[in-house]
């Protein structure tokens, strides 16, 4: 197993009677782009705040490169984090916001110009942050994360409020960061925003881990076989005897959970059931994500 750039063990955060994060453990691989996914209110931001030392866990620990955030010698040079949209005073220009942060981190003022160029915000750098569009504020936040040229990036919902061009820019940005070998943990409540970019996913729901692994693992559990027959009852009984579960879709097709198309075909042949359609079925990422993060399971469809 490769080294963990970020590791959470038993993270729990309680606010009076509400448990926002519940015994959450996960690992983020070094050099991988990991999507931290879950619906709104799942506990993503609270978790990231605990990882970054901004919130105290009720229980558990979170480490970055083996150390708690508060123990890092030069946090800005180790981790770049963007939890709030820019976090800049509305009356301060983007450039001055970055100048202040750079000074605090002991970085030269020239680094401010470099990161402004990286996020393509040079032309608006001297305008007050309060006048920025949401997309510009997101870019300013990303510029701040890059100031110390860190190897680990933690981005909380960076696609929030971005238009399609902005989302495309963000994807390219994340790809560029990944190509440089950086570790990126990026949270989102919309899988489609990050699905094309991430290597791994950590999916949480109601503060608990529901899935962790390569992005393909989301759909692995949802594979099956779609089959249409004029005699579904007979086929279902035959499949049952073979240890396979079939569910009838609203349009009358049967969805067989697991198994191979060839296996289902042979069972149907042995049972003397004619088939009108037989096809492997894979769940889309979005369906799998919804299935994991919706309290009521979605309707089974073809």
């Amino acid at each position, binding site marked *: 197993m490769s080294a963990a750039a970020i590791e959470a063990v038993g993270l729990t955060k309680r606010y009076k009677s509400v448990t926002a994060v519940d015994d959450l453990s996960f690992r983020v691989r070094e050099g991988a782009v990991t999507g931290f996914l879950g619906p709104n209110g799942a506990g993503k931001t609270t978790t990231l705040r605990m990882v970054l030392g901004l919130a*105290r866990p009720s229980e558990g620990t979170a480490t970055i490169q083996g150390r708690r*955030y508060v123990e890092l010698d030069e946090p800005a040079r180790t981790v770049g984090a963007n939890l709030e949209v820019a976090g800049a005073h509305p009356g301060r220009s983007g450039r001055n916001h970055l100048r202040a942060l750079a000074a605090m981190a002991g970085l030269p003022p020239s680094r401010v110009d470099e990161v402004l160029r990286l996020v393509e915000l040079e032309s608006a750098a001297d305008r007050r942050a309060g006048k920025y569009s949401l997309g510009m504020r997101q870019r300013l936040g990303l510029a701040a994360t890059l100031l110390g040229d860190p190897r680990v990036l933690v981005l909380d919902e960076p696609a929030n409020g971005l238009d399609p061009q902005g989302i495309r820019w963000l994807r390219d940005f994340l790809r560029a960061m990944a190509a440089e070998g950086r570790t990126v943990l990026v949270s989102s409540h919309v899988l489609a925003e990050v699905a094309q970019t991430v290597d791994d996913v950590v999916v949480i729901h109601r503060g608990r881990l529901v899935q962790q692994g390569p992005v393909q693992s989301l759909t692995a559990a949802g594979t099956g076989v779609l089959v249409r027959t004029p005699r579904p009852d007979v086929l279902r009984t035959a499949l049952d005897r073979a240890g396979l579960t079939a569910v009838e879709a609203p349009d009358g097709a049967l969805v067989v959970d697991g198994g191979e198309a060839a296996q289902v075909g042979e069972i149907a042949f042995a049972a003397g059931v004619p088939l009108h359609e037989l096809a492997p079925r894979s769940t889309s990422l979005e369906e799998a994500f919804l299935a994991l993060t919706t309290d009521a399971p979605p309707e089974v469809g073809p």
Partner: protein
Amino acid sequence: MSRLIAGELIKVRTTRTALGFAAASLLLVLATVLITILAGHPDTIEDKRSALSFGAAIAIVLLLFGTVGATGEFRHRTLAPAVLIAPDRLRLLLARIAAYVATALAVAATLAVITLVIGIPLLAGEKGPDLATGDYVKVIAGGLLVAGLAVAIGVAFGTLVRNQVFAVIAVLVWVTILEPLVGLIKDRALDYTLGSALTRVAQGGDDRMSLGGAVLVLLAWGVVLLAAAALVDRRRDVD
């Protein structure tokens, strides 16, 4: 620590808040000096020192400057980026206080020069004894001391309270209403109130308490508020 102070100084300098409070301080000082001398015609040493006491005029303004600056971090949710760079909250708070004190001292030094340039020629035309060099030193030293201490207390109080509107109202109600009520109940207790100590330091002390004693009272206020702010801030989650 110097890096954090440099960053906090950039933050103070790059919004209009500091400029606004500096402008308000200037107006108050000009009004105090001109009205006190031209309309009040001071003719005793004490009255003449009081007329030049720019520190008394700006103490509350600088107390509010520190309060607004510290609460502004919470109001505009700008604290997280700084905490991510400097996770030690106490160091960050001390750096913020240092930056605000440096700014307040610069404002106070400028106002001291303006006060003397305007006040000395005007006082020369008034009756009574002239101020000695020691009187000027007390007024200037008191003004600078009160500026630094007032803004530091403001930052500590703002960090403790967080809510900007509540903090500003609390400062005003405390200093202008509640503390004078304390004086009605027990006159001697008034010597240890924040407002009285600010005025007394600004005027270089008086016959009830020396400058050093008044500075100690203000330091006690500052240390208590700073300790409370540091304790609360350390345990608080950052939004």
